[in-house]
């Protein structure tokens, strides 16, 4: 789960990590009010969307006058930003963060993430903050210090000291940086993060260390024990079809193609997408109805696919294991009737009770296109789209 920059900063603050003075602004009135509060010092306005690259997209600006502030805030709120990461749909700006524009001497990077191969939390520190850590890591790997954290030990002072000394950060900042590192680590653990990064973490002209931007992602599997985090979820930043799907426990991700696909199981769903691509078409989505899909879930999956105006063909690929194909076929038939689906539907059913399942589909009177295996199904999908492959 992702949260906004301002929410991440509030979390940092609750862990005693310094952040710039500022507040969230949702309208003109808020903007005027913060201008008065901050007594005319230069402010920075930052659009709050779940995406990086906001600066290039025009979502970040330093303002020096009240008019500038109010104008810019008015322009931003309610608009949609298109960054490198958002894709063609962009992301709506519902609120902006207005805070003091700090003057700083140096930008650092500090982040925690999980190293899957070593099965541990990893601290990354760089003396070159302000750009993406992946970029620093690929361009000047010697400037990124990596500390693997032993689960038995947790983050240790010697690791912090080592990482900071090796990045050539003046040792007079060691104590403050060490305290921030430990706090961020504690936040990572206590809130079940999958990523917690401060970038840039700046050294101001007054030698203070302040988190100027932050990105915190959470482990979806652990949200059950963090209602306080779950409450930070902003559905405006997610695709509405995905939000809808999630309500029914369906794993759905919107993509840019026109073949709507519904599959049971994540691996088979990805393989199905890949197969669609192989025959020259493009998947419109990833949709995993689960290994143990019920006919109800199949119906809801159908609805989601139909809500997507890009979809021209529907491809259902089910491998019934424990789930019986006849149960499933009944679900499909029922949903197709009820929803009055007019798009061509290619179905491939395999597994337990497949014969009975196929009989149900044939006898339904629906104009379903059936296939004996995944390969044939994909070709029929291409055919339905008028592609010659």
């Amino acid at each position: 789960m992702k949260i906004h920059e301002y929410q991440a900063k509030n979390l940092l603050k609750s862990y005693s990590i310094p952040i710039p003075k500022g507040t969230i602004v949702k309208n003109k009135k808020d903007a005027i009010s913060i201008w008065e509060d901050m007594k005319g010092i230069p402010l920075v306005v930052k659009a709050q969307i779940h995406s990086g690259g906001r600066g290039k997209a025009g979502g970040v600006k330093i303002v020096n006058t009240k008019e500038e502030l109010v104008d810019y805030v008015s322009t931003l709120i309610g608009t949609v930003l298109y960054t490198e990461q958002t894709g063609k749909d962009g992301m709506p700006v519902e609120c902006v963060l207005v805070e003091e524009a700090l003057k700083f001497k140096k930008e650092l990077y500090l982040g925690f993430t999980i190293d899957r191969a070593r099965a541990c939390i990893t601290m990354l520190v760089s003396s070159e903050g302000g750009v993406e850590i992946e970029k620093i890591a690929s361009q000047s790997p010697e400037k990124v210090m990596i500390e693997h954290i032993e689960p038995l030990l947790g983050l240790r002072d010697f690791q912090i000291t080592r990482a900071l000394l090796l990045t050539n950060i003046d040792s007079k900042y060691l104590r403050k940086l060490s305290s921030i590192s430990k706090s961020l680590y504690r936040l990572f653990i206590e809130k079940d993060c999958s990523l917690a990064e401060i970038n840039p973490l700046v050294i101001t002209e007054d030698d203070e260390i302040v988190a100027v931007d932050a990105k915190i992602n959470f482990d979806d599997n652990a949200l059950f024990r963090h209602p306080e985090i779950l409450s930070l979820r902003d559905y405006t930043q997610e695709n509405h079809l995905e939000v809808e799907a999630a309500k029914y426990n369906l794993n759905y991700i919107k993509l840019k193609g026109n073949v709507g696909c519904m599959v049971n199981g994540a691996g088979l769903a990805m393989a199905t997408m890949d197969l669609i691509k192989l025959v020259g078409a493009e998947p419109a989505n990833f949709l995993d109805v689960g290994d143990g899909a019920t006919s109800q879930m199949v119906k809801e999956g159908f609805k989601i696919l139909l809500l997507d105006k890009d979809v021209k063909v529907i491809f259902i690929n089910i491998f019934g294991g424990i789930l019986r194909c006849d149960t499933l076929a009944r679900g499909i038939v029922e949903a197709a009737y009820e929803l009055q689906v007019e798009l061509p539907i290619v179905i491939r059913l395999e597994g337990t009770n497949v014969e009975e399942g196929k009989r149900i589909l044939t006898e339904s009177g629906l104009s379903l296109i059936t296939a004996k295996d995944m390969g044939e199904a994909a070709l029929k999908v291409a055919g339905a789209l008028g592609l010659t492959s």
Partner: protein
Amino acid sequence: MSILVDKNTRVLVQGITGNEGAFHTRQMIEYGTNIVAGVTPGKGGGFFEGIPIFNTVSEAKKRMEIDATAIFVPPPFAADAILEAVESGIKIIVCLTEGIPTLDMLTVFHYVKSKDAVLIGPNTPGIISPGKCKIGVMAGYIHKEGSIGIISRSGTLTYEVVYQLSIRGIGQSTCIGIGGDPIVGLKYVDLLKMFEKDDDTELVVIIGEIGGTAEEEAAYYYKKNKKKPVVAFIAGVTAPSGRRMGHAGAIITGGKGDATTKIKTLEEAGITVVKNPAEIWQAVMDAKYKKY
């Protein structure tokens, strides 16, 4: 032969009286798995399908001979269940639960290792040595005894591959789902080593997907130690970056874990990578009859 589990494996079921646990315990018994005990705290002293239930794993372990355990316990308690099994001295742990928090798994991973136990999963369909022992949720009937070893991160895609093989008369020695989570116990490389040593396995199929570097690790190992042919398929060539594709572990992050890199690394190690998931059986047949 087979790896890890066979006809003699005596199996405990943790969470035996829950919905999932009860259903699959029946399925496993039907398949012929030797289920010897169950655990449900507070229900100790009772029986399920004639199998004695204990309150704790250590009690079960003291009273019965147990080689492996199948864990059907909800996500908030599953990590604890694994730890309990390891602490009690069980050496093969299969955790079916999906949705265990990643940080819980970090601790589990290292504890399992420190006690020389092996963990399959979590978020796995389990392990099956066809005709001998099934510890998991896969449909038993699609499998066939034979000489192909299968290691996979997913459920239905594995069934698909198994089925492609079985209907063409190609059986399997052992099929293992390593689990779709970012942190799992045994990985491709660990199982590949076991299959290399198993006399009855003549070819290994690796079914991988985006996320992490487990497939690459297997490739690095294979490059230096290849003995048997390996056929691989990597799902997610069309998956976008930064999105979790169903499995918690199937995500391309920070430019790492994309399918193209995995395919390239596997091919460089001398592994046949199939592009079309409908044609995995074909590649297996080619490799099997071309021989090595």
